[in-house]
């Protein structure tokens, strides 16, 4: 299952985070964990692997312009997770037109709703881009 989704910027500031249950990362330790993990991801250069193991959690991450999308998972196919990030980004793009740090900040509630449409408590719900768009009013 997918343990968490993080979107961070180049300064390792968390812009979006969602954890699912049961989660091994305690609430109090999350900001430290996010900081360490995002630094690790940002430091990994282009030639390195996008899939690795961080403190026992499987990590897949991809970079889109100045944003890093990080997915933590256990017991899942790593390639499928890597592509899930791309899929999420494509879905976000449809709704918020350009996925940039500002767009995410100003549409945080929307981003949450869209992500909830795709991943519900750590499990993929919908893999059809058209249908993952939530009914917005």
């Amino acid at each position, binding site marked *: 299952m997918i343990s968490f989704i993080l979107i961070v910027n180049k300064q390792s500031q*968390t*812009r*979006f*985070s969602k954890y*699912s*249950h*049961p989660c091994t990362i305690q*609430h109090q330790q999350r*900001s430290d964990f996010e900081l360490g993990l995002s630094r690790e991801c940002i430091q990994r250069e282009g*030639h*390195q*692997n*996008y*899939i*690795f*193991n961080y*403190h*026992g959690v*499987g990590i897949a991450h991809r970079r889109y312009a100045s944003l890093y999308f990080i997915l933590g998972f*256990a*017991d899942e*196919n*790593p*390639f*499928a997770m*890597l*592509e*899930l990030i*791309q*899929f999420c980004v494509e879905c976000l793009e449809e709704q918020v037109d350009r996925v940039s740090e*500002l767009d995410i*900040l*100003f549409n*945080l*509630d929307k981003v*949450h*709703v869209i992500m*909830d449409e795709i991943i*519900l*408590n750590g*499990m*993929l*719900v*919908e*893999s*059809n*881009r*058209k*249908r993952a768009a939530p*009914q*917005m*009013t």
Partner: protein
Amino acid sequence: MSMRGLTVFIADIRNCRVRELEEKRINKEMANIRSKFKEGNLNGYQKKKYVCKLLYMYILGWDIDFGHMEAVNLIASTKYSEKQIGYLAVTLLFHENSDLVRLVVNSIKKDLDDMNEIYNCLALHAIANIGGREMAETLALDVHRLLISPTSRSFVQKKAALTMLRLFRKHPDVIPATDWADRVIALMDEYDLGVALSVTTLVMAFAQTFPEEYKGCYVKALQRLKRILIDRDFSLDYIYYKVPTPWLQVKCLRLLQYYPPPEDAAVRNEINELLQVIVNNSQDTPKNVQHNNAQNAVLFEAINLAIHLDSNSQICMQAAVLLGRFISSKETNVRYLGLETMAHLAACADSLEPIKKHQETIIMSLRDKDISVRRRGLDLLYSMCDTSNSKVIISELLRYLQIADYTLREEMVLKIAILTEKFATAYSWYVDIILQLISTAGDHVGEEVWFRVVQIVTNNEDLQEYAAKTVLNYLRSPQYNETMIKVGGYILGEFGHLIANSSGCSPIEQFTAVHSKFSLCSLQTRALLLTTYVKFVNLFPEIKSQVLTVFNQYRHVLDSELQQRACEYMAISTLPTDDMLQTVCEEMPPFPERESTLVIKLNQKQGDTEDKRVWVIGGKEANLERRESMKARMSSIDSISTPTSFTAPEPRPATTTNGNSHMMSAEPDLLGLDDLSISTPNNVQLSSNDVPTPGFEPGYHKLQRAAEGVLFEDMHLQIGLKSEYHGHLGRLALYFGNKTGATLQNFTTQIDSTEALTVISPTPVANVVEARSQVQQLLNIECNEFFRESPGLRISYTSQATGPQRLFIKLPVVLTKFMEPIQSMDGNSFFQRWKQIGGAPRESQVVFKSGSQSGISIESVRNILDGYRFGLLDDVDPNPSNFVGAGVVHGGKAGKVGALLRLEPNMEQHMYRLTVRTTSEIVSEELRIILERSLTYDA
């Protein structure tokens, strides 16, 4: 949707370049919101806006401790946008144990029942995110209804499936998953791929817990793959970069791996056909990276499935070729997963040949730029090692060890040590490699590694001389390496005499070599070396004076351990005769063979960090062993987790151990202190003949007639017992009280359990009994057949006050314990039955003399019969001093047996005539024996 206030606020925060400014702005806003909330009278829009601001602050990492009530109010709103923000706030700010969750349960229930499906979805989201026990209990049925109802829209169904999954994960007891099996499995056929994906995910979780009930999902998963891959029957929206719904394919392929390979050849062919299609599809050159990744996701999962099904199949051969291409791919991700999957293949395949072809590439991967790839390369090399390539691989690993990442070294050392031991063909090679390993790895060598070296050298005589010589050479080198000194000290102390006659290895030279490093070592190592020295005194009297100088020096050091050793060794060495010294320094006995501590350590490491896998790094046998041990663990967990239900008796006379001893033997223990006889069935046979500890009888006999009391007592230990019996079942509680002022260590108990009488200890007894305290052990007893022998109880412990102790006593479990008295039977029916049973062989009669000096006491006879659970029937026998009794013995599988008894005491001659009639010969005789003994001695 737009909220100007919020946008301004976010822009403000973004403009704060320093953390302090941000904090100031946040505090200002919080104060503002607080006062607004306090004033009340906010309309929906305002509430929504403020809650949104709070959420934003929360996401930035600030603690939010108010606003929950407003969020709850928003949920109840009729406007979608407000409801939605309310739910978002609830899912983010609430957690399942918060008291406030109670407030939203009702709103959620209302929304689940609403006609508006979008509201249903919001409610499902909330449950999926914060559902705790209360929600599970109240709402599980509603969620189930939404899942299976034919009127539910697909976007509700798919969410209901995953919401159900959450509730099941959290509180499996609340979800009647097995009852729903058919309905839920049927949903896997849904044409809508979104629903199919969610339901498959749910079924995967159910199937792992209830494989039997959910086995129908196997065929469904197969059909789904067939529809996607062969019939190409799917909605076109679900094609992701030319790959149709890769996530669903991956899920189905994974689900198939949770079940053992199918027996049915037709099914196997079908799967093979599908796998072949996937492999063929992967031959297209991908157009872009997304296509490539999606394709690989499916392909790797398919390869894993192929390995799971049959690692020698045609498909696997093809897979090996593909993997060979992958591990030299330019793309890091592909290399990484290629290596991982190849390690899976190596772990399962009979033949490593296809993998060995790529040995060069794999060794190269140890020098990859990416550490994760290096790690995978190491795992694979470890898995693919066998006798033919072990020398190459191990020397490569040794070479790489010197430049390896620090985080990797300890694990590498363990792996090298294991491989060296496993594939050693020549003793000298083993010693060379392992000492080279210790000398290169230095601080990264864990204790286990050198313990193991010592064990192996001690157990293999041919190794000893060579090991001593090599170790001495290492000690002479100027390099300082503490682990090497420990190994050296131990080996020379034990086997130094074997090389004493070679040139350059004379006793004094050995001593100098060791002692030159002495002052550099840690206190612990120095203590070990002092022991080496005292062994030297024994082996080489000629260097006694040099050694004594050292002892003398250390008699005055501050460290108490060193000082004590020095003083004691000094005393032993200077005794008038050498007898004591020789006894103390007797050669170490060989270590008992057991699982290598190294492998245990390695498995622990993997258990710590790796996710749950179906296979482990290592060769085929490692996986076989693991599967066996998992099975064993599963069954032991079963018997532990269900203390009230009784497991079926084992076919052979088995022994219920308290489980602790089993675990203990898995711990590295160099001294071999724990008793191995516990785990070997042979010894159990032997020890059942051993003699019970004297003094056990009084308690044993007394408690045959009583439910509780003291079973046994000696100077150190008191054993109390409480019991209750119903029908053929019984429960015993044993209380072990430590009477001494010292702690009882390694406290273990072991209780005989036979087919006829199973004794199960649901929880092991504590391993340690503190001074003047007691521990408890519960036993569940089940009578399956009529039995004669009472189960034995073996106790062993060590303590400073007593030294090692063993006790063997009998538990007061006799056949009459499973008897229920019959009180209401009149004379007619008694004699009618008495006659029905008739005489021998179903009657057992005896005439015997009372052992009591003072004559027969009617009162105590009555007590005895009562204690043995006979119902005494008065006014049946015309002679009032005669006893008539009845009862039913519950023999479990052997059925119930009615027992009738007549006892005629002869007061003048101090004699009894005892007659027992039952429908079973064995029971008659056994009851007669029990009563005869008791009446003779106890009355």
